[in-house]
């Protein structure tokens, strides 16, 4: 490499380092995905727990026994026939088995 080419190389190096001064740090796309998962995973788990607790605590969504349902005479429930003589009731939606709790009580 002659002297002029060395000067061109020196110019190139200067150009490179001056450009570097203007650059922002870029996050590795793989790390960015991971860092997002660090945020989203606990949030998703938290939301899941809250929904789970809500289901557990909400009276309309809790599995209830017939004895508990008897306290609320206007409540409609779905009863599967094989469980009619047990203390189990479920909220699975099967319209043909939908009856008013008072009617169950009368039949029982």
């Amino acid at each position: 490499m002659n002297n002029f080419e060395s000067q061109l190389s020196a110019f190139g190096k200067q150009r490179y380092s001056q450009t570097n001064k203007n650059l922002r740090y870029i996050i590795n796309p793989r790390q960015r995905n991971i860092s997002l998962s660090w945020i989203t995973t606990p949030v998703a788990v938290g939301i899941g727990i809250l929904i789970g607790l809500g289901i557990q605590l909400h009276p309309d969504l809790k599995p209830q026994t017939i004895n508990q349902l008897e306290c609320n005479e206007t409540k409609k429930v779905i009863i599967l026939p094989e469980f009619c003589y047990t203390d189990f009731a479920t909220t699975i939606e099967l319209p043909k088995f939908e009856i008013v709790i008072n009617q169950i009580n009368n039949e029982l």
Partner: protein
Amino acid sequence: MIFWRPYKNISDEELMRLVQCRDEKAFDELWQRYMPTIQNFFYRRTGGDNDLTEDLTQDIFLQLWNTKTQYDSAMKFRPWLFTIAFNLLRNIYRNIDYQEIYKTEVINTTQEAQEDNTALQIDNERLFDALKKELELLSEAEKLLFDLRFTDELSIKEIAAIFSIPEGTVKSRLHTLILKLRNKLHDYE
């Protein structure tokens, strides 16, 4: 780490072979090595657009990961990466006025250089200023060739691989380019 060898001691090509086996640490090492170079390359060619530079740099490494199986391990990694970068730029320039952007970038860099002259030798200052002006007058192909050779410091062989042309052609074009600049700048040498 492969057995006792830390990733920083592994060649680019070996790292790429590990990436092909979904080794994420190998990908991180390539990112550490080449992110600044690629970012610098894009910044100079997008008129100093940091957002576009960031997007393109992210894109190229995502492409690297997504197309890892297409990498031929017999090929040198650096020219392969620059080829992806070059193709990405070609797609972008279909929509952007490259000529206008390049001029803006060169002018900005010139202004920055004028503000930061303390580290330069006095003889070189005059030459560099004149060189910047001459670069603006070059064709796009010449500008790119100049940058790849002198700013990105790629070898003749690597440049030949990027443009898919024989090494002899690169040498000849480079020789013509240097001669052209030398004739115009001989007063500053």
